[in-house]
């Protein structure tokens, strides 16, 4: 049996090259790994090694030949008895694989829509307890840690210091240093270590002191945590929560004041949650910890101390991926999330006084986004204002606006306004910082614009 030696490609884009030199002649015996020829392209020179054992039977393409197409037979290896007979694979022409025969496919490739459950009913007579967002988050972690020994929390100052913002207060006492772990200041390292622990089946809660510092760890969040399930064909999962304060705090300037909601919302394989109320913070963090996927959980330092009613239930878990209609209305839809809800709610109260009944939607989850709730509302009100603290270009609001224009264009009575933080690094000076953030007044003005009240 003879084996055809083909002109090899040096890269997936190479189509032809020069057969510069033969290092063997007809009749020579070759072993696997022996260099038999040199080929050249405009970029590089490469050695061609023998893959099979045998004698060079015939050289078909002479050295010095230019423009030799990839996969042209350049020589024939004469078989040398039984050892060779089983070595060659039948060379298949490249064209077979470039012609995109889509296998046995019958279904078109379409995104998979997952039905998200609604919020659980709160039983009549359930006691509501005024709770800060900070305590609600702590309670969520404590409850999940009691429920599952695989859950642990790690981060800078989460244990003995009781949390840089006191979100993990008391956890060390209850769960010991085995499960509440102070890390060195090493975000890239502990984010990667958390991912490894999650690959091994644990359920880490990785706290970033602020999400600004997660920039050091972003490779592990995206390349290691978010993509591995896909890259492994579904074999591997990464049940991890990355949480911490996100967005502007107060007077901490540009490097410590940025909203990352839209950054992470860009990534398939991540879920991104950004609650406003304490009840949502608790119910969604519990869901995030139980979720088998990596979840980015964005909190806000400014609202940690704000109190909201939280239902007193043994196990209060909310669905990730479901928006909440904070206030029903008919004249305009205001969509926001996180601290943006503060401005949206304040504006809706002012607007009531001038006779505008706004519907206020809290997205709660940025990815997967509950666009159905937004679209239904816009179909009713015909007007949309989005409110967020992040930068304007490629904002969450601009994505919502594009989806609404695709799915509810005929319902719109005014152009969508997407309110954002200003397109500047956050300044330090008090007056400038105030100007850089979105404000309640801006929301009021935007609503008046889309309702043609001004």
């Amino acid at each position, binding site marked *: 049996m003879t084996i055809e030696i083909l002109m090899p490609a040096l890269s997936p884009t190479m189509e032809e090259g020069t057969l510069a030199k033969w290092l063997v002649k007809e009749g020579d015996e070759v072993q696997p790994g022996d260099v038999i020829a040199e080929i050249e392209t405009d970029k590089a020179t490469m050695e061609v090694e023998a893959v099979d054992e045998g004698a060079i039977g015939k050289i078909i393409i002479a050295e010095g030949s230019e423009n030799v197409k990839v996969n042209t037979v350049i020589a024939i290896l004469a078989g040398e008895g039984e050892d060779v007979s089983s070595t060659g694979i039948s060379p298949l022409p490249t064209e077979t694989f470039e012609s995109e025969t889509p296998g046995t496919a019958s279904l078109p490739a379409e995104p998979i829509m997952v039905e998200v459950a609604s919020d659980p009913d709160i039983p009549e007579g359930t006691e509501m307890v005024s709770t800060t967002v900070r305590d609600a988050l702590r309670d969520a972690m404590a409850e999940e840690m009691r429920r599952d020994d695989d859950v642990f929390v790690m981060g800078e100052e989460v244990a003995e210091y009781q949390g840089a913002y006191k979100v993990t207060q008391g956890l060390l006492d209850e769960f010991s240093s085995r499960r509440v772990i102070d890390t060195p200041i090493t975000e*890239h390292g502990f984010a*990667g270590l958390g991912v490894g622990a999650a690959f091994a089946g644990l359920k880490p809660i990785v706290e970033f002191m602020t999400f600004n510092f997660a920039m050091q760890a972003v*490779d592990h969040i995206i390349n290691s945590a978010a993509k591995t399930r896909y890259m492994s064909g579904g074999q591997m999962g990464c049940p991890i929560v990355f949480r911490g304060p996100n967005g502007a705090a107060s007077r901490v300037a540009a490097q410590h004041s940025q909203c990352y909601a839209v950054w992470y919302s860009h990534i398939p394989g991540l879920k991104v949650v950004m609650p406003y109320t304490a009840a949502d913070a608790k119910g969604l963090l519990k869901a995030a910890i139980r979720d088998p996927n990596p979840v980015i959980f964005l909190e806000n330092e400014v609202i940690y101390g704000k109190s909201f009613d939280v239902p007193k239930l043994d196990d209060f878990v909310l669905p990730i991926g479901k928006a909440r209609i904070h206030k029903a209305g008919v004249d305009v839809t205001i969509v926001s999330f996180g601290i943006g809800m503060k401005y949206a709610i304040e504006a809706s109260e002012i607007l009531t006084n001038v006779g505008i009944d706004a519907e206020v939607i809290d997205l709660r989850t940025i990815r997967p986004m509950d666009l159905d709730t937004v679209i239904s509302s816009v179909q009713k009100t015909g007007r949309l204002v989005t409110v967020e603290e992040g930068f304007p270009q490629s904002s969450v609001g601009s994505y919502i606006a594009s989806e609404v224009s695709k799915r509810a264009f005929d319902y719109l009575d005014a152009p969508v306004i997407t309110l954002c933080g200003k397109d500047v690094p956050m300044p330090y000076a008090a007056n400038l910082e105030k100007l850089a953030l979105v404000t309640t007044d801006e929301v009021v003005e935007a609503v008046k614009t889309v309702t043609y009240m001004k």
Partner: protein
Amino acid sequence: MAARKPSTRTASSKAKAPTNKDFTQEQDMSAYEDMLLIRRFEEKAGQLYGMGLIGGFCHLYIGQEAVVTGMQMCIREGEDQLLTSYRDHGHMLACGMDPKGVMAELTGRKGGLSKGKGGSMHMFSREKQFFGGHGIVGAQVPIGAGLAFANKYRGNDKVSLTYFGDGASNQGQVYESFNMASLWKLPVIFIVENNQYAMGTSVSRSSAQTDFAQRGAAFSIPGVKVDGMDVREVYAAGQDAVEHCRSGKGPIILEMNTYRYRGHSMSDPAKYRSKDEVQKMRSDHDPIEQVKQRILDKGWSDEEALKAIDKNVRETVKQAADFATNDPEPDVSELYTDILV
């Protein structure tokens, strides 16, 4: 194999050099076959790449076979974890992953170990406790420390074998991992496969301190320099290291001095080293030839029997290549699966 003396190593960064013990006939024969499988598989992968059947990047392990083969002999397969960089085919074969599935992943087919969605650099096996296959240089190192963290958290005595190269050794996250691993006494063996070149940049042109075994000194991690071309030495050092980790002493570094015969990836112009250098390594230090010579010298086998092993290995590789070239591409409906559960 004679019982090894218990390690008397302390937290000093200088660990004792491995004592090279002769292999038994069984060990030499199995090492020979395991290394040959990697060598023949990689040669075939190179050929399929040249035919345009494998796309993208393809980093071959040829020359480095003794490292993973020797280490694999030290561990409990399917229990202890391992993970590595993008030069990962050898590790997958060594831990027993199906050559057909590996090759079909290289060709991007339905029967690939990642259903054709991962490619050469991204394969995993829960069954074999192989955690990738990582395409970002150095990123596997904290992940490997995290696997070790999980072992310690659960109170078992499993060990994480975390492989990376001399190039990755200059990434900051490697030292972040060293620090946490030593601080928390994590059972992780950091295996530096020093193949002398970070892509095309030699160790001496990229590293201020080229003694990689000493790279853990600042974190009180002991390190050992190992002739990574000699599978017996790899095994001896590996056994000590595994024992070190299992007994709760924390991490250890093994610097495996090895050599890659082929380019960094397939499209490597090989301008950064001389042909003589490559040829000398091949002729004087080849890990497979060393074992073969021992087998023949000791009369454990003869040329004919070794040829029969070679033939079997080639048949395995041929079947893998046939499968990988005939298996269909993934169904288009797979485009949107395996993103979330």
